[in-house]
């Protein structure tokens, strides 16, 4: 089959200006510099200087991939890996520096929910405005108007200016417009981070439906790995502007998590106000679901201080906090003198979490600082032994917790 998106040797170069860290140039600086240059430096020196002024930075380099019609592709990677730049090029907001992209269909990009919404205009007017911005014609919007209003559930407030909307209503209306676009290719960035969970689910459902029923292609970027996994089957893993891997999304997500952890494991202690928090030690670092886990938390006082409160935090790979362990009974109003070390050992008797990689963090409240410290350690939980002889349901359907139960 002919690919719907064909990317060849795609690259995007930015020039980083060292002299002006600001994004724009001020006319007064340009004029001042010109005047300065007339009176100062000989030519050779000036040339040398300007060579230092700019540095090339390739946000994307040598990208090659094909996407088939109907594919739902997730793009993952760390901050600054080039995900957003890629989406920006595909939606033609910015031009590539090298290479070529062939798109065999209309593209609608959803880099933000409610692009161009004007607070003074009513919901009705904003549907038309936003629709036109997303590339719908007026006739098309008129035809789908009722459906959009229905999906958003704000029909009562259609003639109210959107500045009076609650943020939930605002997002719902905006997404309703986006969900009714009919492009062959839909490019979606992080937009689902806003809005309530129920509506998010509705949107994801709509997207999935659109893609399976009408064979639409979706390109999706999100930091929420579980959402990416739910929505997409294939993926592209970007690292420093290049493709590190491509293929099935589940493989990529686990590869991504694994690499993230390797990086974390050899990290230095983290300064947090007057204390330095060491990496958390977990024994063992891999357990079976339902097993016991020992955790050692420690920190060093760099100056005299007192600890007011604290808790151990546990996150799953999608960044959802699955639970905390309150440490206040041990350390409330604990005074620490300079150089003193504090160790806390915690045994979690039964870790009834479904398999996956979890990350541990610490909440601390001290004399001079309070807040969360993330990613101090990670622990892998493996699948429980099944003694029923029935294969478990797929992981993504099983929620967060493995219950201990009996069926009578």
């Amino acid at each position, binding site marked *: 089959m002919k690919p719907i998106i064909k990317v060849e040797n795609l690259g995007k170069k930015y020039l980083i200006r060292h002299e002006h860290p600001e994004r724009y140039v001020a006319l007064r600086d340009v004029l001042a510099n010109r005047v300065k240059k007339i009176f100062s430096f000989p030519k050779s020196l000036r040339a040398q200087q300007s060579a230092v002024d700019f540095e090339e930075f390739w946000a994307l380099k040598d990208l090659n991939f094909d996407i088939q019609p109907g594919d739902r592709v997730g793009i993952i990677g760390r901050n600054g890996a080039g995900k957003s730049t890629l989406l920006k090029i595909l939606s033609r*907001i910015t*031009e590539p*520096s090298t*290479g070529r992209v062939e798109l065999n269909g209309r593209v609608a990009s959803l880099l933000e929910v409610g692009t*161009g919404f004007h607070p*003074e*205009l009513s919901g009705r007017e904003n549907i038309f405005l936003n629709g036109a911005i997303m590339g719908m014609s007026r006739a098309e919007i008129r035809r789908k108007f009722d459906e959009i209003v229905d999906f958003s559930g704000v029909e009562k407030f259609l003639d109210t200016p959107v500045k009076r909307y609650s943020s939930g209503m605002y997002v719902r209306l905006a997404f309703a417009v986006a969900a009714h676009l009919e492009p062959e290719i839909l490019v979606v960035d992080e937009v689902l981070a806003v809005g309530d969970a129920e509506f998010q689910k509705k949107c994801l459902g709509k997207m999935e439906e659109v893609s399976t029923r009408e064979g639409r292609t979706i390109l999706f970027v999100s930091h929420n790995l579980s959402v990416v996994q739910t929505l997409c089957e294939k993926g592209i893993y970007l690292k420093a502007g290049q493709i590190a891997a491509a293929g099935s999304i589940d493989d990529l997500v686990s590869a991504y998590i694994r690499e993230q952890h390797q990086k974390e494991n050899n990290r230095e202690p983290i300064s947090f106000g007057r204390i330095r928090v060491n990496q958390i030690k977990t024994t063992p670092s891999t357990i079976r679901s339902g097993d016991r886990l020992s955790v050692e938390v420690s920190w060093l006082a760099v100056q005299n201080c007192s600890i007011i409160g604290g808790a151990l935090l546990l996150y799953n790979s999608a960044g959802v906090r699955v639970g905390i362990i309150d440490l206040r009974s041990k350390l409330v109003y604990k005074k620490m003198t300079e150089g003193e070390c504090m160790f806390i050992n915690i045994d979690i008797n039964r870790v009834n979490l479904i398999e996956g990689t979890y990350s541990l963090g610490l909440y601390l409240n001290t004399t001079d600082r309070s807040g969360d410290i993330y990613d101090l350690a990670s622990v892998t939980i493996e699948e429980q032994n099944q003694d029923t002889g029935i294969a478990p349901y797929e992981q993504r359907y099983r929620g967060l917790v493995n219950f201990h139960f009996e069926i009578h």
Partner: protein
Amino acid sequence: MRETRIIIEPGRTERNYWQDLWRYRELFYILSWRDIKVRYKQTVIGAVWGILRPLLTMIVFTVVFSRIAQLPSEGAAPYAILVFAAMLPWQFFANALTESSNSLIGNANLITKVYFPRLIIPASSVITSFVDFAISFALLFVLMAWYGYAPSWNMVFLPGFIVLAFFTAFGVGLYLTALNVKYRDFRYIIPFIVQFGLYISPVGFSSNVVPDHWRWLYNLNPMVGVIDGFRWCILGESALNRQSVLTAVIISVLFTWIGIRYFRKMEKGFADVI
């Protein structure tokens, strides 16, 4: 499924530019509609403001230039009408400059999130200023009725001069818009240009008071030709100054060309810079 094919490669937008502009005409329409709607929705006095501003300026100018400075009008035309005939294109020009030069920064969220030919944004803000122009135009007829002054038959040529005013504003506006994105402190200069221009253009006085041997220099300001044309159409009291109109046509075409070229050169980087 409709067969659409889009190729993205360096320099591609450049080549498909006018085709794209046509494809996005609907967006152009909607954005102008939004600007007009918001403008007249935001303030109760929105429309009143459009009338009040030229009216008050006209009164002040009439008093200052006619009564105090004792400058002559053209033929039998009341001085107030002489001023107002010039005030119309000038206000349009000044508004268009101010609005369009701020338009891209005001729409930064659109530019960084959606693709469309960026030319649409300053163009639609010139259209918005044009609506103000149309409103104050109605006021001209009220003023003429008040003074019992009949318009001249030259009025039939007025659309031509409106087009000339439009392109002068559009060309200069586009150039300033691009400059304003590049040099973010340029916006401090624009009010100065507008204010300065009001006095060096023949708004408060007839361009006939300028000595003949300086006329060629004076004509380099394209608004001189535009205003001369408007006065000739509306008042018809003195012969059309062909030289100033011709200069204005040449300069406005030149500015439109330079404006579009410069804007397009800068346009590619807008999303990265703004």
